[in-house]
């Protein structure tokens, strides 16, 4: 297997994530925390993020489905989601979460729906790109390191 080629692909994908604004400087901070003692730290944190964000988004979906909209509850869920986005450097999602919270403050339900659809799209794209990135890293790394972290 051409590990050099795989590493180049991974590096290119990573660069694209930053250049296109999906990730910000906080992702570098996570990478700086990774070391020999915790060699899969970034992937582990990202896995936690997508697990938690999927749960929060399901809660938001349910709350938006209710006839009577609880904007306070929606704002609390979105604050949690935004916090997680901030912690992994998910820059575009973070911006969209802020937009959603503005709509909550204005009690603008159409605005909430629109921004939530955008958040879901960004979430899906980010998940796909990061999964591809970490898969490439696993393939490109030494054989003994090419394992999935526990989910």
């Amino acid at each position, binding site marked *: 297997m051409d590990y050099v080629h795989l590493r180049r692909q991974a590096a290119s994908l990573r660069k694209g994530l930053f250049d296109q604004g999906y990730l910000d400087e*906080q992702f570098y*901070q996570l990478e*700086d*925390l990774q*070391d020999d003692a915790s060699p899969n730290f970034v992937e582990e*944190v990202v896995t936690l993020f997508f697990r938690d964000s999927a749960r929060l988004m399901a809660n938001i979906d349910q709350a938006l489905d209710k006839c009577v909209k609880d904007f306070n509850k929606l704002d609390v869920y979105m604050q949690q989601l935004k*916090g997680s986005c*901030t*912690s992994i450097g998910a820059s575009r999602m973070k911006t969209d979460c802020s937009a959603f919270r503005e709509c909550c403050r204005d009690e603008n339900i159409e605005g909430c729906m629109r921004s939530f659809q955008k958040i879901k799209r960004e979430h899906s794209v980010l998940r796909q790109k990061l999964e591809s990135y970490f898969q490439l890293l696993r393939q490109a790394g030494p054989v003994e390191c090419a394992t999935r972290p526990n989910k």
Partner: protein
Amino acid sequence: MGSGDCELHVLAVDDSSVDRAVIARILRNSKYRVTAVDSAERALEVLEMEPNVNMIITDYCMPEMNGYELLRRVKGSRDLREIPVVIMSSEYIPNRITRCMEEGAEDFLIKPVRPSDVSRLCGRLRN
């Protein structure tokens, strides 16, 4: 203990699994021993069982009991009041910061918390 590093025991409290993982990593990289829990209620259980906690670092916004309430409980306890409590929050709300500092918080950090924030705390604790 004998190294120059901070080999102290920190109790990290955060309901977000992402933030819990990050703060625990930062603390461990700074040579702290870390116990990470997902609620203030669980933190109080740990404090009851584990006498040697050198610092508590807690998120502000948590369901049920928040970080401010945890701070109040710690500072109101004869056994726990000397433990420094650091509050973390993703929101910069001056009134919130003032309230926590007046209640005896050691520091108030805006998330995302950086290793430099923890180094600063470590330096103060060792002194």
